[in-house]
């Protein structure tokens, strides 16, 4: 304990700010996050917020880590307690040797007065009262005092902090000035009244190179814009809303006709998720690139149209920013709970294409690629992210410009039909199980066909014949195999001495490097496969075949990816084990490694005693 205090801990800590929802702490937290980032220290920020507009508790966690571990860490080093209603509980979340900053006017129950942490009482309310005349602004500006306090205690670079402040409030000089004053008040208070009792410091380093800091929903939105999306139909839902809203912002900035100021796009806030996808399907049928974005409850509603899109073979791109279900569930908590539902959405036999971005770069890349895939395969394509990836800020390498032009898939115009002499919408002429389509408005007598969700033959004529149905369903199954050739392959990180395999996907990737290092420290070496799409590619099977024990780590109760792997590879099912995290918070490395270690130990015991 005493040793820990003497030791200096540089660029390795988890800071949590406990506030009240609607109190405007987001700006303060962003300034702190950006300051660490610009000091070149790897950083990640996570917002834990309630389904509420004002009044309920909110926590913001910043992880600073020189080794680049920026996934969630459950243990807290540094608490800024700004919410008296949760303070009692918050105090006990801090690790021994940690820090607690709270208002000096609060009375603290002796039972909560921990002697194994450094306490820094700051008269937040009083400082504000003495320095801010406008009572309305007081609450907002209080947050800036803690920015100053934290900056001073940790040694955040002054110039970087000030630049982050200026960026946060853009060009509003007056706002910058009033916030700067509060930051200075906080710093000044620390200098004059507090003696540094904790080991935590930050120092400039150069780990962030050329990186940017962006949330997954903005990255996905950029992907849509660079994917050539022209029709957006959506219904507001947390945690998806900021995705279409960002698409709208980007479209307004980058997709206007410069001469007329008119829109080269259409955005509709639909009456519900059913209509949202209906519009996307209609637009896709007519030849536009169209997308919608939603979360679990919307996915349930979209089931009907997804079945139509699959069966009638219409391109559509659907983002699912997953949250905790079933039903309304925990609307502001994260999960990977829609995987099984999504890949077989609708009644009848269906198998859909789903992409699983594991980072903000991939939100961008899979964002634009999803439109190519949807057009090429003539089917709805899902992009599954989650609240953690979508709404939190992540470091990323700069996004790479698409490496190929838009792929509009198999579309015949009037001239092509004239050349070919005939057209049959659902005939597999190329052997890849994808037919050619025409768009409404094509000026040729043979171009028209009737699109329907009822039974149809190769000529798109109505049929109830069993052999026609089997023929169609078998072709759609073959089309799924074509999709497996086109979707992103998994990413493997091998260790030549690996005893076990680990499989994860999506945001579960973020704590994986740390988890594998923890496993290595315990003598367990692992190779890691990150699945990026369904249908699975060959590499997934090859990876499973390499190991006796493979741990599928995911964020849901039932092991949905595990189940999917077992369905696809029944002969390998017994090799697959499961680690599942589902309390609504992002999964953390320690949870993952602890559970793998525990299962590894019990399998050793089985070997000895069995």
């Amino acid at each position, binding site marked *: 304990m005493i040793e820990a205090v003497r030791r200096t801990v540089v660029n390795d800590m988890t800071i949590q700010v406990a506030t009240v929802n609607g109190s405007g702490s987001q700006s303060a937290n962003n300034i702190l996050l950006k300051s660490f980032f*610009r000091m070149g220290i790897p950083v990640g920020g996570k917002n834990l917020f309630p389904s509420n507009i004002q009044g309920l508790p909110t926590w913001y966690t910043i992880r600073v880590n020189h080794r680049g571990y920026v996934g969630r860490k459950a243990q807290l080093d540094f608490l800024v307690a700004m919410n008296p209603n949760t303070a009692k509980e918050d105090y006990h979340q801090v690790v021994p040797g940690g820090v607690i900053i709270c208002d000096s006017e609060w009375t603290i129950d002796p039972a909560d007065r921990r002697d194994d942490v450094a306490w820094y009482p700051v008269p937040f309310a009083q400082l504000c009262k003495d320095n801010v005349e406008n009572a309305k602004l007081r609450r907002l500006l209080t947050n800036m005092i803690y920015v100053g306090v934290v900056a001073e205690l940790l040694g955040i670079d002054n110039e970087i902090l000030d630049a982050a402040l200026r960026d946060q409030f853009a060009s509003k000089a007056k706002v910058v000035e009033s916030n700067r004053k509060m930051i200075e008040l906080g710093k000044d208070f620390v200098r004059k009244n507090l003696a540094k009792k904790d080991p935590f410091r930050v120092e400039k380093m150069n780990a962030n190179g050329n990186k*940017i800091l962006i949330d997954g929903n903005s990255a996905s939105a*950029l992907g849509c*814009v*660079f*994917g*050539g999306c*022209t*029709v957006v*139909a959506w219904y507001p839902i947390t945690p998806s809303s900021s995705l279409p809203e960002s698409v709208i912002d980007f479209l307004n900035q*980058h*997709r206007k006709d410069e001469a007329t100021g*008119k*829109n*080269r*796009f*259409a*955005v*509709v806030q*639909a*009456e*519900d998720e*059913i*209509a*949202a*996808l*209906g*519009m*996307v*399907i*209609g*637009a*896709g*049928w*007519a*030849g*536009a*690139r*169209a997308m919608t974005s939603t979360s679990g409850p919307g996915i349930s509603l979209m089931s*009907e*149209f997804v079945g*139509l899109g699959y069966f009638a073979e219409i391109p559509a791109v659907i983002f699912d920013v997953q949250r905790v279900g079933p039903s309304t569930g925990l609307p502001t908590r994260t999960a990977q709970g829609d995987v099984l539902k999504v890949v077989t959405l609708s009644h009848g036999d269906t198998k859909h294409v789903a992409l699983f971005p594991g980072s903000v770069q991939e939100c961008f890349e899979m964002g634009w690629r999803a439109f190519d895939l949807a057009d090429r395969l003539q089917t709805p394509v899902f992009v599954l992210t989650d609240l953690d990836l979508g709404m939190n800020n992540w470091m990323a390498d700069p996004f790479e*410009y*698409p490496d190929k*032009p*838009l792929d509009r898939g198999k579309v015949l115009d009037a001239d092509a039909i004239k050349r070919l002499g005939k057209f049959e919408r659902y005939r597999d002429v190329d052997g890849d199980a994808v037919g050619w389509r*025409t*768009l*409404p*408005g*094509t000026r*040729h*007598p043979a171009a*028209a*066909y*009737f*699109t*329907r*969700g009822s039974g149809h033959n190769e000529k798109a004529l*109505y049929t109830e014949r069993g052999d026609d149905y089997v023929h169609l369903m078998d072709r759609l199954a073959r089309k799924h195999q074509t999709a497996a050739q086109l979707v992103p392959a998994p990413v493997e990180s091998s260790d030549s001495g690996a005893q076990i395999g680990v499989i994860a996907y999506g945001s579960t990737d973020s704590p994986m490097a740390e988890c594998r290092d923890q496993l290595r420290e315990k003598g367990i070496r692992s190779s890691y496969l990150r699945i990026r799409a369904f249908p699975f590619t060959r590499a997934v099977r090859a990876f499973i075949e390499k190991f006796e024990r493979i741990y599928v780590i995911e964020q849901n109760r039932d092991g949905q990816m595990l189940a999917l792997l077992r369905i696809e590879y029944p002969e390998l099912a017994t090799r697959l084990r499961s680690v599942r995290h589902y309390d609504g918070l992002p999964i953390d490395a320690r949870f993952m490694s602890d559970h793998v270690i525990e299962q590894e130990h019990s399998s050793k015991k089985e070997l000895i005693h069995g």
Partner: protein
Amino acid sequence: MAEVGTVNRLGFNRQEYTGSPSTLCNGCGHDSITNHIITALYEIGADPYTFAKMSGIGCSSKTPAYFLSKSHGFNAVHGRMPSVSTGAKLANHELTMLAVSGDGDTASIGIGQFCHLIRRNVRMIYVIENNGVYGLTKGQFSATADTGSKQKDGTINELETIDCCELAITLGCTFVARSFSGDKKQMVPLLKAAMSHDGTALLDVISPCVTFNDHEGSSKSYAHVRETDTPLHEIGYVPSYEETVADYAEGSETDIRFPDGSTIRLKKLDHDYNPKNKVEAVAMLEESRKKGILTTGLIFVDTARKDFNATLHMVDTPLIRLSDAELRPSRETLSRIVESYR
């Protein structure tokens, strides 16, 4: 009926506007409507390659297969035709959206989408083939069945009826008409006018179901509809390419001009009716309901409101014809955007 060899201004004969043979019951009102649609298209000289035929699910929704075989068609899911049509129209505004729905498809499962389509004023022709009954599932009441109407097994509908025209007017629909499948003289000009209208044009057409709703006691039987049909006016349609000539006595006729230059001419019958007055239109419908009569004609029209594509400030080029360069911002733009996240 056009003679063999007769063609319209585009050089098409009537046959060019037909589709595959109907699979509906003999005598179904829907087949008459299909014929009226074909007649209107033929007479107006419509270009089949610009049409998109839209429908939902039900007997009515099968009918787009029976006309315009040269046009693409989309038989969507039950009650969801409006959203699919909205998306298609946004993607390519050059498409003429001709939609057919039924009373179940519109007034029950699809009433939400129906309301929001109207609210947006998406430019399309929306025909409800209204028989007050679910035909394909064998005779259950629909939400447009009149109060007091009798089902084939004797059950009386005790619920309030939904009047799609009245609902549409209150939601801001810009073209609301009611007709009867057996009234070719009224329906054909109404369809032509609907095609000229720049917004959602609703035609609620009472179309008796010969199998499940044509018995005594049904308010949507041929006999009952013929008996209570009360036209508001006589309707004529003058296309944009023909001159309108004022050859009528002052006050006996009203001309309504559409943005495409065509005109609908309403000839007064026994009393004055102004289809531009929303309040009068709703009062008239309430009065008709009270009296138990079927008032038909152009109930309400507003040619001033913008359609949805205009509301969204969209470019003139259909979205589907934008070039790749217009769709994907440049490499430099991406660099600039990325830079703002440092």
